[in-house]
């Protein structure tokens, strides 16, 4: 299958979802989001795939939502229902396999929120992170107000979302937003390769459960979380 704004590549256990809208700096339009969702669902049911890498084939990872499509939806109610029922961001959050984002250039708005929904982020030093919503009289809609607190603290979440300031990779690393950075993109690719190579030997079921439990630690109270850990640990024996 082929898509207009997404390129897909599968090599053994590693799937690559590549944003391919370079004319608009990978701004996410409606079709691109729908293609992204379709590819993600395909990765979810393909048992050969153990890890998904989300990246770009151009200079920028993602410049956020395509603003040219704004104010074109006929009804606010309809738009609200569609985004709630067919929500790519929830699919990303609930995606059971590890997701790695490999970024460079702009990581703006929904682009930033995508990396916050992923599990590991490898960034080139050219990466610029920004949440410009309040500057544009918008609020985040791709889970940003909820997922930032899963990775960093409330003071940093508010600093990023209320002040709309750009942050670089060094700050992003200190804030706990990215896992690794380098000024050499090839080194970064090699790091990601090593990382995915390690995942190759791990049992997929175990990988999914551990990811689920770790995400649960930000959702449930400690005792319920511990209960689920014991339950899954016992069932895996």
């Amino acid at each position, binding site marked *: 299958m082929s898509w207009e704004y997404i390129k897909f590549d599968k090599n053994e256990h590693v799937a690559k979802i590549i944003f391919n809208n370079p004319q608009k700096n990978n701004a996410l339009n409606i079709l691109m989001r729908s293609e992204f969702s379709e590819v993600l669902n395909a990765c979810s049911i393909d048992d050969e795939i153990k890890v998904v890498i989300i990246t770009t084939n151009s200079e920028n990872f993602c410049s956020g939502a395509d*603003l*040219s499509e*704004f*104010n074109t939806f006929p009804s*606010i*109610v309809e*738009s*609200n229902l569609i*985004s*709630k029922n067919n*929500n790519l*961001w*929830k699919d990303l*959050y*609930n995606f059971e396999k590890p997701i790695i984002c490999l970024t460079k250039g702009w990581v703006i708005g929904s682009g930033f929120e995508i990396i916050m929904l992923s599990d590991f982020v490898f960034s080139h030093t050219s990466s610029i992170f920004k949440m410009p*919503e*309040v*500057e*544009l*009289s*918008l*609020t*985040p*809609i791709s*889970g*940003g*107000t*909820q*997922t*930032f*607190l*899963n990775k*960093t*603290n*409330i*003071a*940093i*979440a*508010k*600093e990023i*979302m*209320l*002040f*709309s300031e750009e942050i670089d990779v060094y700050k992003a690393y200190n804030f706990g937003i990215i896992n690794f950075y380098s000024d050499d993109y090839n080194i970064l690719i090699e790091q990601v390769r090593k990382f995915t190579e390690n995942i190759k030997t791990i049992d997929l079921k175990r990988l999914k459960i551990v990811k689920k439990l770790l*995400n649960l630690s*930000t*959702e*449930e109270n400690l005792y319920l979380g511990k209960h689920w850990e014991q339950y899954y640990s016992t069932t895996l024996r």
Partner: protein
Amino acid sequence: MNNAEPISVFNSGKYIIISLENEIISPEEIYYDLNSIIQEININQDIWVVGFDLTKVAKICDIKSSSESLNISLTKLILEIKKPVIGLVSGEISNRLFEMILPMDYRITDKKSIFIMSQIFNDNMQFDGATQLLPRIIGLNKSKELIMFGKQINSKEAHEMGLVNIIVDEEKLNEIFTRKIELLTQFSPLAMQFTKSAINFSKDTNTIRGMNMENDLYSILLSSKDRTSSINSIKNKNKRKPYSGK
């Protein structure tokens, strides 16, 4: 709004700065005035950002009357502010004063400030939310160090932990404080309020429910005049008109 000691209020139109004027503050002394100021801030659509200047305060005392103590919570008042709140502190930020800055959204201090909660050494304990608010800001481990062992930290450590957002030179405290507040007055007030509300909600819910709430707030904002004019100006490549908060 009346300027009443020990609280003074500067109202610029789009933002308001509340200053505590006395070195030693008793919560009873300021609670009721602060409550009315905050109620007005919440209903006054012309006020977009709130600043708290606590640089003159050296100490906030414990509440004298135990019968009143449950009703007098300064942090609860600040938590009720719907608009972004920026706090300015300097010097020794200890105990109740330390607690008072925790519900603020952005904290500014100078290089020489120190932060300490020493209640545990005085047969006392936190009263105004520190055991609940501090872990949400700096994490559980570091909160335990500060609260259970009374560890003192300097500005640099406070910044690294995320307890303060920015450290500035002492002589630039007021300038940066005002600049940060004025920066926020350039942004959409409704978007700021909704974003603040959604971030705060995320502490008390699971991610998927929070995402639904985020979606609802986004949809409410779709009908705002500011949002329409902002998107139109981007599409038509015009200079954006200042936001109106409507």
